[in-house]
């Protein structure tokens, strides 16, 4: 009997330890330099919802650390008077249900002033209403699906959630930009379109297909793959039968990299092009081949004067993971929240839920110079920054080949 009690106690203790470990792991304090600032009113929290584990973790960890950097800098500079800022990063594993749990957790904590996230448009769909219900402002560094701000009917746009903003441009610019480059500049006329059936991939592929057709190309084949698939021989055999001269893929790099490699193995030596979801070094590790193309939001971070300070500060912090495709956007998103919060509170304000409306309207009218350029939002909550860059795999690296604001 005693034996059994001891066993149960050991199990309970082990569980408690594991929980404690998770707790300390997830809530990271935003830097130490706050000693000189007045933090007498307590702590406010910036939430992050991004995939910190799973196949898209490379992107999510870049988002988390960049937001951490913004929080640490704000603490050093005493940006928010009377408060210390904290970061609470929640893992959404790139899954809508898990994202909803993260959003519920963050929105029930009344010190959470705003949330940076999500990475995936499909996750944003479940996160948006939860945060909006509690009037928690949300700025996404990476959601590019247009319906998140304007609704599904783009000819008759209607703002979806007053709390939702994003600092990156959308797929109704990104898709056409890719189509213009592939059809007009590279002269590809027979294009096969493959997508993964998710909100982001399907939307991007549709935006691309429309513009490519207008530009004079023919979509010779349309296919869909599963998000967890790894063997694409079936899909690619069908694509090959349509003899395209390029493949456009709507989706993310865990599928796109192997897909490009398997296409080449089947004798399809044509470029694969995709959107910001495949623009990651991991794409090349997983099989992305020379000559493959990707569009991504914003100008190349390394080329922007405005981003140099960000890159330097990020590297000085010595984060384990690179800032990846959305780091600079995440940094700008966090700064937009922090700076709007400082405006809302002023010199002597005290945070309470009644200030949330004011914070939302301050984010809406926020104008700043961020790492990715000028940061501001239009009446739908979309970024006014419509700069897109086309990258190509050259010498096992993504190299920018064209940067410009998309004009329509």
């Amino acid at each position, binding site marked *: 009997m005693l034996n059994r009690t001891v066993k149960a106690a050991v199990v309970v203790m082990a569980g408690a330890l594991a929980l404690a470990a998770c707790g300390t792991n997830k809530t990271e304090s935003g830097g130490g330099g706050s000693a000189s600032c007045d933090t007498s009113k307590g702590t406010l929290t910036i939430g992050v919802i991004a995939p910190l*584990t799973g196949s*898209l973790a490379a992107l999510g960890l870049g988002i988390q650390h960049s937001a951490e950097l913004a929080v640490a800098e704000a603490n050093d500079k005493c940006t928010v008077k009377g408060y210390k800022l904290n970061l609470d990063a929640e893992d959404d594993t790139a899954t809508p249900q898990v994202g909803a749990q993260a959003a519920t957790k963050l929105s029930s904590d009344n010190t959470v002033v705003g949330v940076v996230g999500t990475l995936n448009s499909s996750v944003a769909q479940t996160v948006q209403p939860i945060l909006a219900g509690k009037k928690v402002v949300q700025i996404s560094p990476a959601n590019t699906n247009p319906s998140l701000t304007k609704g599904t009917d783009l000819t008759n746009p209607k703002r979806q959630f007053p709390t939702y903003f994003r600092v990156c441009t959308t797929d109704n610019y990104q898709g056409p930009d890719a189509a213009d480059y592939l059809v007009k500049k590279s002269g590809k006329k027979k294009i096969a379109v493959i997508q993964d059936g998710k909100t982001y991939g399907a939307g991007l592929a549709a935006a691309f297909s429309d513009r490519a057709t207008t530009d004079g190309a023919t979509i010779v084949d349309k296919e869909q793959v599963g998000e967890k698939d*790894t063997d694409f021989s*079936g899909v690619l055999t*069908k694509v090959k*039968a349509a003899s395209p001269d390029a493949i456009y893929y709507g989706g993310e790099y865990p599928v796109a990299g192997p897909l490009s490699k398997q296409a080449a193995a*089947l004798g399809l030596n044509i470029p694969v092009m995709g959107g910001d979801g495949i623009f990651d070094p991991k794409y090349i590790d997983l099989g992305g081949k020379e000559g493959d193309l990707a569009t991504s939001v914003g100008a190349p971070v390394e080329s922007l004067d405005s981003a140099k300070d960000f890159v330097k500060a990020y590297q000085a912090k010595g984060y384990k993971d690179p800032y990846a495709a959305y780091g600079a956007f995440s940094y700008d998103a966090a700064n937009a929240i922090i700076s709007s919060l400082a405006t809302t509170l002023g010199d002597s304000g005290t945070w309470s839920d009644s200030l949330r409306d004011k914070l939302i309207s301050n984010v809406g009218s926020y104008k700043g110079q961020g790492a990715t350029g000028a940061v501001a939002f239009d009446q739908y909550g979309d970024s006014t920054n419509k700069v897109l860059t086309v990258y190509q795999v050259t010498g096992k690296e993504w190299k920018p080949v064209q940067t410009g604001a998309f004009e329509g």
Partner: protein
Amino acid sequence: MATLLQQIVNGLIFGGLIAMVALGYTMVYGIIQLINFAHGEIFMTGAFGGLAVYTWLLPAEAQKIWYVALPAMMVGGAIVSLVVALLMERLAYRPLRNAPRLAPLITALGVSVFLQELTRIVYPGANSAVPFPNVFSAAPVHIGSITIPSSGLLMLVVSVVLSVVLQTYVNRSRMGRAMRATAQDPDTSRLMGINPDRVIVLTFGIGAVLAGIGGVLYGTYINNVDPYIGFQNGLFAFAAAVLGGIGSIRGAVIGAFVIGLIKNIADIYLPGGTAYDYVWIFILLIAVLVFRPQGLFGEVERVRA
């Protein structure tokens, strides 16, 4: 026509992969009526085991010689899978040997998630997909207009050979007879001097070795692995085992090839194309189960005293 032939080849390769995993499902079920949902993860750990052997144990010269590297990786993957499977059997399933059937089933799901997350945390870089070297010949085989990846062909050949060896072993050897006896009636076989625990361990072990070798060949063919590859492939393998008649070795292999072929032929000929190929697999599965609930080669469930 060329497209059809190519799809048949693709289907056979996929079927070969699924067969190696399905054998483990079907054998374990045959002996202890446990649907071991963690078996897909045994396959996954085998792939990571092979990759670990390649990365840390093989000297650089040996990495380039496929007939040294590949067998070493297959042995390494099989050993890792074997150890994981035996630990799983000893720690998770044996304590539940006489519990209601639902308990080990739920445990299997738990073990599955545990192994996925453990691999993700323990293996360096496994937070996302890890590139896997193609140690076998990278040059594809061309027959007419059909392209067959060499590593895929190898997977198919190894799978068929191992299935035949296994079938012979179970039908001819002394231990094989013990396995069949335990499957038929564990209590009587114990009276006949068979140690059921030994038979069960052996069954888990054989299934794990096959899955481990399958994992390494899968990595060589697909060229990247992540901790979640066991889930989807395990699901197809389970479907193959049920389609062929769970408990039957021949059934699992044939079920796997049927699933591979249906998937790839649905891509070109059935409505919905590539977006609906999985739907057709499971429609077929349901159709077979409606008319033959025991599967294609399965035996009607025996009533046990």
